[in-house]
């Protein structure tokens, strides 16, 4: 298309573009409402494949319009780790709950603590979880977490017995409406052992000396090594 055509052609061209955006918008809308889970941008593009070239810009334009379209509705278009989804706006949660009287069961503290350790320490073995909690972690909890698709085995630690290494999934982030692991609330900072020592009126060597110990003995020190970056300390006592 030559540029000499002027506005006489520009207008229809713009209209065509607009039609295309609208077509993509509706296709995306259909896919998102049909899906039970968040949908990745890649799959959204695949849904529009018979509409010609749908590039990132066009997709984003369509998503933007969709978002706008539901601006003042009861639902909203959100993005979390697994992609895009529609969800009911939180101010209507009570309304939905009133219509769905059965509350999901509360999660036990044992399960939540296990989940928290996996989330912040991943990848982590069951023995390491147990070392932190001070009690055995039941198979039931590990299986429930996996069944709920919040946790999965990502590998095996190369130590005797090759214990499974657990990590959280995208579904875990999706269920909490998070985009990435770093969006989790930060862990409280543990006070340095040197401080501990000086508080206790002792002179101590720093804990690094222990780091070379086997998996049995140094579990407590792995804190500094693994896991997502502990964000700025929010010390709540």
């Amino acid at each position, binding site marked *: 298309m030559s540029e000499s055509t002027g506005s006489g052609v520009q207008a229809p061209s713009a209209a065509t573009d607009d039609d295309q955006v609208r077509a993509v918008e509706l296709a995306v809308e259909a896919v998102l*409402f*049909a*899906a*039970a889970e968040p949908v990745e941008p890649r799959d959204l593009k695949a849904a529009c494949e018979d509409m010609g070239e749908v590039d990132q810009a066009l997709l984003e334009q369509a998503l933007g319009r969709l978002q706008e379209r539901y601006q003042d509705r009861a*639902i909203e278009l959100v993005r979390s780790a697994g992609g895009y*989804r*529609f*969800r*009911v706006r*939180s101010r209507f*949660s009570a309304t*939905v709950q009133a219509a769905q009287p059965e*509350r*999901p069961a509360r*999660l036990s*503290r*044992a399960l*939540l*603590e296990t*989940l*928290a*350790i996996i*989330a*912040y320490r991943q990848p982590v073995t069951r023995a390491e979880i147990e070392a*932190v*909690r*001070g*009690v*055995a972690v039941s198979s*039931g909890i590990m*299986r*429930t977490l996996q*069944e709920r698709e919040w946790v999965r085995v990502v590998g095996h630690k190369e130590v005797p017995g090759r214990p499974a290494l657990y990590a959280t999934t995208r579904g875990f982030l*999706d*269920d*909490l*409406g*998070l985009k990435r692991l770093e969006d*989790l*609330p930060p*862990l*409280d900072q*543990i*006070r340095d*052992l040197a401080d*501990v*020592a000086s*508080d*206790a009126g*002792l*002179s*101590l*060597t720093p*804990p690094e*000396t222990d780091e070379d110990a086997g998996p049995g003995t140094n579990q*407590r020190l792995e*804190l500094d090594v693994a896991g997502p970056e502990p964000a700025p300390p929010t010390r*709540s006592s």
Partner: protein
Amino acid sequence: MDTRDELNAVSDPPATAETGADGEVLYRVHGEPVAELPADLYIPPDALEVFLDSFEGPLDLLLYLIRRQNLDILAIPIAEITRQYMAYIEVMRALRLELAGEYLVMAALLAEIKSRMLLPRPKEAETDEDADPRMALIRQLQEYEQFKTAAERLDALPRMDRDVFAAGASVEALEGPPPPGPTMDELMEALAAVMHRASLMAHHHVSTEQLSVRERMSSILDSLHPERFTDFVALLLAAEGRQGVVVSFLAVLELTKAGLIEWGQSEPYSPIRLRRRGTPVDDEGGESA
């Protein structure tokens, strides 16, 4: 606190009576354990078991004991904490709560720390752990508390299906190749997994008989109206033979027990009639575009 008392507290847990310096009393009356819990936390006797059962483990219990007294973890008064810890363990034992081995391991650790603190320290071997036997425990407690807090925050985040809800629409109108159906193997495998998880293994006696009752419960419930009574006898189909009648009868009993249906009789010896409890479900309506 006198070191001899500390030792006694460990080697001789409060089996009968012990009064601590802070006035905490833990004793038995006629063999029944009675715990007078700290003033900052009133726990009705009935709730004691629930209370003790609610600890997630020895670290959790220790943390509670430390926090209750508003103490810094870094300055655990080992002797006092050990005494209280042993007291709680004793109550758990007396109430026959399932006392996990971890609690006893912790008790042993506390005792060890105490005893080591009483010993004169060899000057030469002064690494951190040796310098103060509390160090390892303190670190463990700190770390546990860190994740305990993290778990609470995790639970407080808005969660799908509890606090927020996905928005979806029916895909019934859509056409396409039929999606896969369930195979018997898949179904059985899935159920086996659930049963394991839910400790359903006690259901040894659920038989095919009961399953037919379950099915009949569904069909009877479906056939009953909330507003109209149905003749009980009409539900018992002679064509099904004796077994069919028994199944229907059991199904009706089960539904009654579950409070899903109600019985009626207009006068003595008149036919017994049933109806579904509750208000009617809307009748079929036409679809609007």
